[in-house]
């Protein structure tokens, strides 16, 4: 198989520092592989995903400060989880996780449960209780 050489740099400084190996098929019917950055068209949906993720984190932060959601909700979004992932990573059942999103329920949580969450998010219990 032919090796291709690419030398262009991706323009956005925040993305595309890492080059991947891609295979291609050209009109003459040859497969080739080469190490390059993602195409501009690929970057669009990668950025869309991260924009969406950032919006979610921002919104979660607002919700927590407004007192509608517990800090667990914010940290879940911050570590890119959904309730399902959080439930399996912290070994707490899904309906309990969802219940713990309520600020009233969160204040009554035991130290043991809080420790489970803190370990999952890789932070201390103090940080879990008071978000910045």
């Amino acid at each position, binding site marked *: 198989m032919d090796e291709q050489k690419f030398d262009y740099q991706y323009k956005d400084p925040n993305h595309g520092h890492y080059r991947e190996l891609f295979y291609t098929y050209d009109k003459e019917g040859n497969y080739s592989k080469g190490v390059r950055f993602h195409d501009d068209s690929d970057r669009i949906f990668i950025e869309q*995903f991260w924009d969406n993720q950032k919006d979610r984190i921002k919104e979660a932060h607002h919700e927590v400060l407004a007192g509608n959601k517990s800090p667990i909700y914010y940290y879940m979004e911050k570590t890119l989880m959904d309730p399902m992932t959080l439930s399996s990573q912290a070994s707490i059942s899904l309906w309990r996780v969802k219940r713990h999103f309520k600020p009233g329920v969160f204040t009554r949580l035991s130290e043991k449960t809080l420790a489970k969450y803190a370990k999952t998010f890789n932070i201390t219990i103090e940080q879990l209780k008071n978000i910045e």
Partner: protein
Amino acid sequence: MINYTHHQAGHCESGTTSNLFNYYGMEISEPMAFGVGNGLYFTYIPFLKVQYAPMISFRNLPNTIFRRGTKRLGADAIVIKKFKTPKESMDALDRNLEKGIPTGLQVGVFNLPFFPPEYRMHYNMHNLVIYGKEGDLYHVSDTVMEEPQTISYNDLQRVRWVKGAFAPNGKMYWINQVDKNADLKKAVADGIAKTVYEMTKIPIPLLGTKGMRFMAKDLRKWPKKHGKEKASFYLGQILRMAEEVGSGGAGFRFIYGAFLKEAGEKFNCPGLLETSEMMGKAANKWREFSYMGARNCKSRSEPTEDYGMLADMLKEISYMEEDVYKKLDKIEI
């Protein structure tokens, strides 16, 4: 440290398998490992949400490529599916390294320290090879990265024992011995037959080419059902799975085409060469689909391309691929 050569690869598991074979002196390229080990797949599970979008997968279950690949190529390989405790798993790894065996691991991506931040998701089906230990540091060959990396004991233990869907539980695998006179022809034939079965013959509408058409049908409805913003996000998820997550482009279709071509040239089989052309065209169509789809991801609330058109395109691709598998089914290698 073991004298292990790191090659970057398109897909983590086929790259790992191919690198391990190469280490033992058997020349198996990445596409070959991918094809023989049944890497190609398609699943669409709308009711299972991953990061708030329907689950779509272009790859087979974790460890399939290694297990089936080594079995068909007659290599003496061992897979330890899970350990009881993290300590035990790390000790087993250390023992292997002392014996001089490069060892493959299944890990979660999220806490890998050397990984690009934009790939860090809760994805537990990543594969890498450990080939040396110096003090607290392990030498890692991760096929996504251009250069070999290092990782500390604690970090490695953490990524090996991440919880969640497809939790690795310390899974490790290695090759003891390869059979250099293995019947490659039969291995290729078996690999192709199984892929054809998985892509066209399983009677579940969410798998294989039927799954693609199912997804096309849903794609048409998304803007009405979920609103334009969400439809664009879901579409982005399909494209991300196809192009981004270590797929070598077009959801592994290029790698599979390259496999068909390599096999065709090796065994002098015109049928395989023809199918490799068809596969290449289907893969290019996938690329075209992602170009078109990306436009809808750019203008999220005002789609520039019609979702119906994209759905038609997806349907066309599914028939193109189905032709490939039907043809492969009849070929005698």
